[in-house]
């Protein structure tokens, strides 16, 4: 296995497109574990850490740009991530343990597309857009269309995720990633990512995604619509929770049965709303 550390994104893309078996390495929180477990055997590892444009967080106009190699700890510690983006920061704060948050990156986590991870749901709730760089240019993929299936994204094999763009709008929104797990630091048994804006008692914006509830975050436009414009009464939230529960398709595993996971979604949604209200 070869290890290459290109200095620029175009150079990295060139190596990636020349070799089907090459894999990009950012923090290694997931890929190194998979290498150790003999689950992947790449021919080449392309280290991304020297590529400056992939690193760090910047605010520009209507969005916050989070470079793909930004660590979870950097995201968790950045107080510019407020409003709509707070849901992403709240998710970063709860990923695994501090040692992993210091190593792992948002790009690595997002491209791994583990539906039990924290970022996928949070990015969907934040209506984030993922920027994919290819040799022919860059394209923007809404989070909803990025996470396709278990460990599967809409990123092409010769593309590198360059950044996650989180909209600043709506102003005055609040975000919460409510994570329920067996122990602190475990993957979620169920997570609720929620962004709400409330103006004089009524909900003016709502976007909710459920993690660990299927092969990709569960997000229903009709649920967002049901909540938006409502007074977020218990009855409304129960209806919303019911719809999410019906749409959820979780697995039975060591973290809980599918039936149990479905069952607790409405109650956790209510809790997330209460915490934001």
């Amino acid at each position, binding site marked *: 296995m070869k290890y290459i550390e290109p200095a620029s994104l175009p150079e990295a893309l060139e190596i990636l497109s020349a070799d089907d078996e090459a894999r990009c390495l950012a923090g290694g929180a997931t890929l190194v574990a998979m290498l150790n477990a003999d689950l992947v055997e790449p021919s080449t590892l392309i280290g991304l850490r020297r590529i400056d444009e992939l690193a760090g967080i910047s605010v520009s106009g209507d969005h916050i740009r989070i470079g793909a190699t930004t660590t979870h700890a950097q995201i968790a510690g950045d107080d510019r991530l407020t409003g709509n983006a707070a849901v992403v920061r709240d998710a970063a704060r709860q990923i695994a343990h501090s040692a992993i948050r210091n190593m792992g990156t948002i790009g690595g986590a997002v491209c791994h597309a583990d539906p039990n991870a924290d970022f996928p749901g949070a990015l969907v709730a934040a209506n984030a857009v993922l920027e994919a760089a290819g040799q022919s240019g860059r394209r923007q993929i809404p989070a909803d269309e990025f996470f396709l299936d278990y460990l599967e994204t809409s990123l092409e094999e010769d593309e590198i995720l360059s950044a996650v763009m989180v909209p600043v709008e709506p102003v005055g929104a609040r975000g919460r990633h409510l994570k329920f797990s*067996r*122990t*602190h*630091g475990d993957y979620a048994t169920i997570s609720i990512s929620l962004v709400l804006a409330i103006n004089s008692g009524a909900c003016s914006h709502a976007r909710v995604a459920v993690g660990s509830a299927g092969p990709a975050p569960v997000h229903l436009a009709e649920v967002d619509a049901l909540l938006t414009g409502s007074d977020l009464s218990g009855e409304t939230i129960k209806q919303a929770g019911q719809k999410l529960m019906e749409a959820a398709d979780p697995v039975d595993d*060591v973290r809980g*049965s599918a039936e*149990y996971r479905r069952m607790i979604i409405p*109650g956790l949604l*209510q809790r997330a709303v209460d915490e934001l209200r």
Partner: protein
Amino acid sequence: MSTNMAENQQINPIIGASVPRIEGPEKATGRAVYTDDITRPGMLHAALLGSHYPHARILSIDTSRAKALPGVKAVLTGADLPLNYIGMFIKDQLPLARDKVCYSGEPVAAVAAVDLATARQALRLIEMEYEELEPVTDVEEALEPDAPVIHEKRDEYPTMYELPEEPNAICFTEFMEGDPNTAWDKCDAIVEDEYLVPAQYHMYMEPSSTVAEVDGSGKVTLWSSTQGVARSQMYTALALGLPMSKVRVIAPRIGGGFGGKCEFTNQPITALLAQATGRPVKLTFSREDDMTMMKRRHGGKIYMKTGAKKDGTLVARDCRIILDGGAYADESPEVSPVAAFFSQGPYRIPNMRVEAWSVYTNLSRASAFRGFGNPQATFASESQLDDLADQLGMDPLELRLNNALEQDDKFFCGKTIEKATMRACLEKVRDASGWAAKRSGGRPAAPGKKRGIGMAGMSHISGLAGAGANVLLNEDGSVTLNCGAVDIGQGSDTIFTQIVAGALALDMDQVNFAAPDTDSSPYQFQTSASRNTYTIGRAVKKASDDVRDQIYRHAGEILECDTNDLELRQGGVVGVKGVPDAALPFIAIAGRALWQEGGPIMGTHNWLYTPQDRMDPKRMLLRGFALMPDGIGIFTFGAQVAEVEVDEVTGQVEVLEYWAAHDVGKAINKTSVEGQIEGGIVQMLGYALTEEMLWDNGRMINPTMMDYKIPGMADAPYKIHSLLIEEAEESAPFGAKGVGEICAVGPAPAIANAIKNAVGARVAQIPATPERVLTAMQSADDAD
């Protein structure tokens, strides 16, 4: 001699002091040397191939491709090894499976190669052909007449006890006192239930690891992560067909054991690979290998029925315990009798019958694990007492106080209680926790949560087996202690150093603790049975007293005084009482002994823990028990209280605060005792709430730290109050008893009882996962 005088002296203040761990700095700075840190010239690296199937006949093994891989030096299978069965009470196991496999993960082949990657690659080139057999994974199904037989040759194995008829039974024990058949008529309230307990993995930080080397004479030396060098020596010699004089075992620093590194782990196979290759071999398991190949706590089922009078007096109990021993017996023939013995708990129950089974299943083998059968039995009995209290409308703590064993009572099976401190433990934990106010609904819970408080009482032992110690006076007046005891992380090196320092009025750095090594250490059973401080400590204390007496003899001759007039002064000085100027440093005594008169000064003590009395066959029915629990140790008592919050949406339980009152006799090192108690509670928080090895049709589905969750720092209660009761035990060094296991006996029932107090639902299966708690809450709601 002067022994009595000296023992009447005030105890040296080092005894009871929270002295820092002697090995603390090297561990904190990463300089501690564990087995895997050891490298020998020309050393090879080994890996084992585990069986894919839980129950299968091995039809063929083709190792030719593995052997042909460059860098591979040896590939062994069961057929290559001598047919030397090993085991503690029944010799039913070989280092590598031969003819058939009995659990998924059972080692079937071993490779030694120039590096670990090559060894692991070679494993993938071994071709196995199996004939699958139906696996037995349920303890009750294992006992059914038509169950597949796991050990067809069971009755041919060398066995130290009487085997039951049922072919999958490892052992059967029955104890009976009073007249449990008619006593039920006298009961006003009866509770009956079925309890399920999980297989818990030891999760020591350091996976099993051994380095083996054979010298020119054929003598095998092992460095190994073990709980007892003499045990590893014995099993390795047996497996290799060598006399023990040809096997040497050294224990470097050990990263935890909890019972999992008792008896043997991977020492025999590593030694066999070293023999086969003629080169040093290291075998360190990955976490997954350790979880699938090594040992665990016995899971199982417990049926229990308890009856009491209106006033809360316990009258009768019937109990049936079926423990899952896994594929090989290991310590099972002791574990289920101990579970039976402690099923009465620290209470008077005049009419009692208990039967306990260990059975073979096609799951990994169960072994010793902190508490040794007691946590399983106590989960059932302490859960049941709370349900009984609820039925009687009594406070559960009062119910326990009413029935607590007192000094004149006998323990179950007629055993004498050395110090009856159960009442003191209950009262202490009641007062410290603010029990009455909290139990009556004291503090409000966080939104969406319900708060509750629960408790458990428990008893255990401290003792067991033979111990020796040598204390050598060095030429400069410092001393070296050699007792062969392995500190598995619990702190016994420091405790023994304190005992020597305390007995001889030395400073800590004047005492050298010699690392355990079978070539030089006196016999030491192993680190188990809460025995180090009590059993080994006693040998250490008496060996130190022996040195003191020899020093006094010399000093009396030099100072021309009666030895009764002598005293020890801090820092290695002997002097005449009341005469400050009449003093001799130990260096002077050592010099005289070495060069002038008497010869080297070395104190020695060897003893075997022997119970005051045996189980009383006139008092009760005894059937089918092995060595234990007839003579396992002196009794210890404790009581614990847990305060929890239960999430109404998810059923998740958070333990907020914990109180643990323990009779420790005397704390040699207060911080260390508190550390033991806190560690036991947090470990068993996992047993109570999250830890459970899971198998799907015999194949383990969670053999990783990602899927099998132990509690971390953030999951521990914000405060654990360790409440020490110090009533000196006469037979103990400075009065000290072991607390390593008893602290782990109470948490599961205390937490389950707190859950019931919070939400009104009994969780009779642990771990009390959120899903199980929520289900219990829903059934309780449905019942209302």
